[in-house]
């Protein structure tokens, strides 16, 4: 595996680790927001110090669908899982000649 592939693999691993961490921690994070989406929404949070515009902006952010439920996230994870599994299966089952255990010579080195 070359250096570039190694970097890609590490990025993927980091992304996965972050994703797992985010899914575990978001619902109960200290100072977080309990959110219920409906016709008449409400929220709990420290909004007293904010004016109406700011409240609206905050609500606009909070109204977003959790990232792990988004289509893009599920699609990305799916692709990466398949790619990772494919990579692993490739290395498990590859039959190409070994790169090492080789004797080489060169008489043309003039």
């Amino acid at each position, binding site marked *: 595996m070359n250096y570039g592939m*190694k970097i890609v*693999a590490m990025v993927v691993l980091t992304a996965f680790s972050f994703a797992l961490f985010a899914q575990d921690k978001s619902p109960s994070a200290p100072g977080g927001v309990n959110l219920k989406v409906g016709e008449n929404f409400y929220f709990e949070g420290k909004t007293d110090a904010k004016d109406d515009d700011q409240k609206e902006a905050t609500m606009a952010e909070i109204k977003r669908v959790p990232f792990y439920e988004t289509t893009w996230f599920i699609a990305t994870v799916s692709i990466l*899982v398949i*790619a990772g599994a494919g990579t692993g299966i490739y290395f498990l089952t590859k039959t190409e000649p*070994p790169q090492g255990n*080789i*004797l*080489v*010579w060169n008489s043309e080195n*003039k």
Partner: protein
Amino acid sequence: MKIARAAVLLCALFLAWSCGQQDTGNFKITLKLPENLINDCKKDSKYEDFVDDFCIVNGDSVELSIFSTDDLSRPYVFDETRVLPVGGLTGSSDFSSLRSNRYYRFFVKVTNTQEKVKLTGGAEGILYEDTKNYEINIFLGLTGDFVRVVSEQSDKTSLSTYFTEDDVPSGARAVVLKDGRIVLAGGSIWRDSGSESYLTRTNYIDMAKLTVTDGPSLRMGVKDHVAALLETTDAKGALSPKTGKVVIAFGKTQDGYNDKIYLLDPEKNTVEQKVSFTNRAHARALTIGGEVYISGGCDSGSASRDIIKVDKKGSASSWKLMEQGRCLHGMIDVSWVTTDDEGVETLHPAILVFGGAKKYINTDQDKELIGYNDEAFAEIIDDLGTQKITVAGVECVTTGAQTSCTSLAGFGAARVKWDDPNKGPNEDIVVAASGGFTQTANDQPLSFSIANYILRGTGDLTNPKGMTWALSSSGTAIRCAYATMVPISSPDSFTVQYTALNCGTGKSIERNHDARNEQYIYSLEVRAAGTPGDFGLSASARASVNDGSIDNSNSGYFLDGPTVVNDFGQAFLFGTRYIYVISGFSDSLD
């Protein structure tokens, strides 16, 4: 969601495992070829004057032999040999898997279409682990002939892995470690002014990497000292360190002579001072059964009779006394092994010493060679004591007021052995000697020895003191005052045995910065002729494909560099700029 998490985890594990595939015990050996002093390897061998000895060409065979051991204190065991046909000037081939946690030894032999073994080389002491990748070099040298060691053929200066021309020591000493590296220690450097600087420098020369690195400094600068490998062991009897240690002892110093014995530990990269004896230089040393024996040595007034033994714990003590104090002499291992009814082998250390001087020689007027006053020309020392031996051919002849006695000092000497009783005297002790200087008559100054000598003992190998000894000689063009010689490996079942002789640049008994000539290097042939029980022996310099055994591009300051031989029977000779190698014909000296 649990399923998704499991999938992600599986994916991560796969990727992590995949990343770990970089180090899978891959092992790559690159064969390094010598600099071609004759022609270009790119030329086809159809050219009439093409000498393919330097190249691997179409039609050759590359034979790779693999040996291994689980501990360097035990001998290597042969694993397998692969013969690879060569289809061109370049090539590669796979070889079988290696086993983890074993030490490996690789020997490569290149044979041409006439089955002439033309190139050999090897690497050893490599601990293999299948969690690492390896890339090593094996430097191939000409069999029975000398070449410069260079890391790249295209770059003639690429073994600036050695030293710059005006920085190469005279009177240095070298030792091959158990892992194949060479330790070079001490010596002195001549300056243009004629002054001499004594070196504390040590270096490791790694032939698998073709590099030179600094070792620990000696406690004081010395030349004309001794160096030998000591196989120190730990409490369990295992070799420790794995490289062995280097005994460095005595020698001439800037202000006089050294009286100390040091131990260099390549693993810790330290030099430890052991005991002191009396001042001396030009002693000789041997490793027998992993222990080091040091004989003689001299200062400006006299020569020592001591034989000192350094045991596997690193303790040095006086072992025996020679009948005759001597330095600049020959010291040869004539030990033997006995086997009892239960198959247990016992080593009986025994040493042959011969020739030499009675004091440190500075000029040709120092008429102090052994032989003129009824001194013992040769002695054998073993556990039971010391015994002068009578040597046929060693004599004094008086004509009028002038007496001529056999004398020889400063020469190189090596024992050669035949493996086949039908090809040579395999039950005799045969020692070749060449170079050095002699005193032709009692009223004559010292002069170059002009003969190749064979000192031969016939009889019972387990009783060297009881053998019949004779010295024979033949004329030679070899001229050098301070020579060093080692045996090299010979072909199996062959009539000729070979040695490597480093003549240095010294063409004078007096060692001055301007007393120099070109670098002379020889391979000596010891040829057996006749039938079993009646073999005659002769010694002569082997013809070189190089120009008259001279490296014309290697002039420099006066130099008498050391010569060492590795486990493959491959000799390394230290010159003024280059390290030279004379390769043997088989995978070991035995």
